[in-house]
């Protein structure tokens, strides 16, 4: 009772500040950088560089599968990655198969594919192919390892698979040179279990920042070539292909928000210690 009556110290008041104030501060930290950009340099990590190097080393006859296995809830993190890798593949002229094991996936990547193809003057069906969603998840992975054309009867736009020039020479796992799956769940494990492990197709993955820590063991064991982790991974990739796009912008907001959160932790703990010492 006496505690309540006592006048609150500065630190106590600071710590008990209304959480809506905290919400407001963090919201501003994330929104303002969109209007005032600083243009911070983005250092590239090895995991990202390894994927880049792998794709750089591919030739126009090689085939890359980019699977956007995510739904809208995690697309802010994963869409920029897909965008960056797809652009890199187009730039390198490798044959690219864009697809998704998730029902919402194709709808999310369709505008990105269209825009990138326009920017690089690439043609659907010749430089890349966009597959529709097919029911089956892991079954789709297994099927396409054995026979691509039997798995997808048409492409996303409804063109019969036999009429698509790019897939003429793509049969099965022997023709795939890299699989990159972008996922917010555990579908990276599906590709790992049903594509990489049995068929030995090289794999990389783009995951949300949260799951990134779980991927490191697979990188160390050599199952993955590399990884893109969260928005930073995407921003790093954008730096590598020299195109500053969605991720780089988001990164700036990210940067400021991190500073604010770290300050929160520091102030919170100073307050905590100050109060503890008093008692």
């Amino acid at each position, binding site marked *: 009772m006496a505690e309540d009556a006592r006048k609150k110290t500065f630190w106590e008041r600071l710590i008990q500040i209304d*959480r809506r104030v905290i919400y407001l501060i963090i919201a501003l930290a994330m929104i303002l950088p969109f209007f005032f950009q600083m243009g911070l340099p983005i250092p590239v990590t090895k995991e990202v560089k390894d994927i880049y190097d792998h794709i750089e080393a591919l030739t126009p006859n090689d085939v890359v599968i980019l699977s956007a296995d995510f739904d809208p*809830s995690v697309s802010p993190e994963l869409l920029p990655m897909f965008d960056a890798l797809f652009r890199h593949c187009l730039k390198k002229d490798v044959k690219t198969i864009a697809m998704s094991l998730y029902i919402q996936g194709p709808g999310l990547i369709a*505008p990105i594919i*269209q825009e990138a193809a326009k920017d690089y003057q690439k043609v*659907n069906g010749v430089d890349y192919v966009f597959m529709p969603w097919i029911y089956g998840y892991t079954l789709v992975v297994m099927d396409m390892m*054995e*026979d691509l054309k*039997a798995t997808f009867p048409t492409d996303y*736009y*409804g*063109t019969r698979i*036999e*009429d698509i020039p790019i897939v*003429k020479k793509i049969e*099965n796992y*022997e023709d795939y040179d890299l699989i990159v799956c972008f996922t917010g769940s555990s579908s990276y494990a599906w590709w790992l279990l049903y594509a990489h*492990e*049995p*068929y*030995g197709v090289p794999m990389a993955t783009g995951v949300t920042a*949260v*799951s990134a*820590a*779980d991927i490191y063991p697979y990188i160390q064991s*050599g199952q993955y070539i590399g990884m893109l982790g969260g928005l930073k991974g995407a921003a790093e990739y954008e730096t590598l292909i020299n195109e500053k796009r969605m991720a780089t912008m988001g990164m700036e907001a990210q940067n400021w928000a991190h500073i604010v959160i770290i300050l929160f932790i520091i102030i919170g703990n100073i307050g905590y210690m100050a109060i503890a010492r008093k008692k």
Partner: protein
Amino acid sequence: MHLLKVKALPVAILLCAGIWLAASGCTPKGSPPAVPTEVQVIDIPADDGTNVVIAWRRFSASTARQYDIYYSTDPESLTNEKFRKKLEPVTRSVQVATPVVGDTTANKVEGLGYYLVLEEVEGKTPIAKVIKATPENRDSLESVGEKIIACEHELAPSDVDNRELRFARGKFFRITPPEGEPEPERTTIENSTIETGPEGFVIEQGKGPLILDVGLSDKELQFRLAGDRIEDFDPENSALFFKYGKEIISLVTEKNRYNLSSEIVQTVIRGNIEPGSEYYYLIVAKDDKDRTSETEMMQFTPVDDPPMCPANTAAVLDTIDGRLMITWTGYDPGLAPFRDVDRYEIHRFEETDTALIGGELLGTFNPDFSASFIEGDFNREDMFYIASFDNTGQRSVSQPFGITPTRLSKPDMVDNLALVDVENDDGKALAVRWGNPKITLELNIIDPSPEYTETELPEGYYLIDSGEEKRLVHYEPGDTTLPERAVPVFSAHRWIAPETFDVSVRYKIFANDEHDVPYAKLRLDGGDWENDYQEVGLFTFDNLPAGEHTFEAVILNSAGREVENPEARVTQTVVIDKPGTIKDDAPTEMVQVWRGNYALIDTVEEKDSVVTEVFLEGPPHFEPTNKRTFELAGLRGILARQLQNSWPDSLRNKGEYYYFVRVFASDGAYTESDILGPMRPQSQWFHTEKTMVLILVILFVFFVNFFLAAARKGKRFYLRPIAGIAHLDEALGRATEMGRPLLYVLGLNGISDIATLAGLTILGRVAKKAAEFQTRLIVPCVDPIVLIVAQETVKTAFMDAGRPDAFNEDDIFYAAGSQFSYAAAVAGLMVRYKTAANFYMGMFYAESLILTETGSMSGSIQIAGTDAITQIPFFITTCDYTLIGEELYAASAYLSQDPLQVGSLKAQDMLKAIYMAVIVLGTVAMTSGFMWFVNLFKIRLEQ
């Protein structure tokens, strides 16, 4: 309080509906898509007359999403809607470009004074001409043309202004060169240096990279200087157009918007039309609101063309053994899908036979062949011709061709050629394997910190890049022979050779699945061997002194022993004095694999017991002794060491296959193997690579059963107390004191997740206590099966506690089916009921923090337990206590005090001890190089 909130709801709904209606009223109705223009029929050359290509022009502003081509031999069936519905059209989908709401004012070109003049073409879209007004022609332009106001580089929405959308052909660029002097650019020439020679400076092939600062070529300078303009696209200078300009999608005049960008859309009517018959067709364009517009009716007649003339013919006479090799190209790769060849015939050409119909028949080949040795007596003067026949007997012949005498060096047949059934598969694959394991090295030499000297070049030096070589040439000012592409060079930066280099050595092992050769070891200049157990194949040497070095590498098998075979060892002596890559020349031989099998025919019983035969695979006239009846199965480089053929499910475990291979040298000479086989792909009943898994599983089952049996016999195992349990009881007590309900969350996963099960066990205990204390227990569920089990668990607990009456089934309910709906629903519950304690036991994902933060906001005591690694940190920081990972399982065992559960925990501990021992042994083995032990635990599931 609630009433107030409820009243706000209809207001909100009305508000939504209002905005929606108001906004949808603004959406314009639009018109049907543009009709395809310039429709043409293209005959596919050399096909069997069952295909035809229809092509037409489509403008990018067209809203047509799909084109349906209706065709029939009967015009009536096209004109009559009822009949047309029965036809199956060929559908061509296209991507409808997304319009961009842009700022058109930025692209205003009114001031430049350009006029658009249309040139009408009969039956086609008019051609656009862009003409710049001069005082002389301005008046005439005003009368025949329209003044261009703006050019658009993006597609504008159809309703952006009141202009009418029209189409015109033409490709124009808006060129907006930058102002001011161009900055010098840097260009690097690998492996060259600049030297002062008697004629001034020259680029010499030499050491290290050379960097030149160059200006722009005259042509580019001119292009820049011409200023802001609209220009007709010139494909010869496309690079300049793309560098300084942007393509114009639409031109805007006072009244109209002319869409210029277009493409020719093509589609193939394939397979189900009769050659020679007259067809009527029309194209229906459809937009995404299914509005349609259609072309007039047109006609085509598919033609069964003769097959393609065999081209690239060559006859090579081996002057050593007198064999004649004939090679030819059957079909262009682009037309391969329409290949219409039944057989090829090679004839000896006779002078008198000008029509090319007679002459001695030297051989008949199936359509897959494109090269063959022919036995017989041949003279240098002999001529030949090749005839191809299609299924209807039409014939095309090549030009007669003579012999090129040469001395062919027949390549050696590959070693260890074998046809094998692929191991550990399900009877779908065979493989042809050959060769021994081979290793090659690739050196990448890097200058760690390159340094350069700078040389200023006097005026008049130009770099001429012919694509093959780069030359530095001096031209006097005003010299008219200066090539267009020559760029002036201002200064050169010569590389200074360092004393040390960083070298990375990558090895490549070429082997097939039978060779068990995962990695190699390497040594530098006869030093210590370095093993590469990580299988990355990369060794790096930093600061290696410049000079001669020897790299030696040997392949190791999985037990870590050297492989005995000359190709498995490589010694490479190189002089390291400049950056670059050094690698071995790869052998150029190719292995062509041929396969033969008896035709596989399956019988399928359809309705009404009609039996049909379905042809599955294989050539119809197969003879196992005649290589001419085999089919090409694939081509591989000799280093691939194997070729694997797999078949779809319908063909697995079926059919006997024969193979032979040809080894081709780069000059086309080849050696043929004997016929291998027959062999039938077999299913295996045990995957040998999974032996270690089987051993571990057996060990596991044995241990578990041993401890469970002991527990059943009454043996009690010690279990250390788990701190979380005390907290659990404390929370229950607190909730009772407060008289507020308990909330128990079982996570998102289904019943077969171990965390959910552990959560259910703990739920039993919590429910029992809740029943005893008469505290309300709320269990919102996300999985229907978990819901059922949770209901029964709680019900049983209440009965065990002797209070079945207090059990309320509706407190354990289905909250929502998806992650966030569920999180929102549960968060709502916490706020509404002010729960005293929240328990989170099970598998959680991103929703965890919403739950726990809301819980801590409402002041509840929170206890969590999960094996979701990513969520544990949030539980630790927001909950009062967290059971980490296995602690959750242990808590459930501890609480139940079920001897079986405790026994299995004990078994788990023992297994953990064994795994630890294995890790320690494995690490010792790895560190000291006993690879065989480590390899016991490696499973290779790659095929």
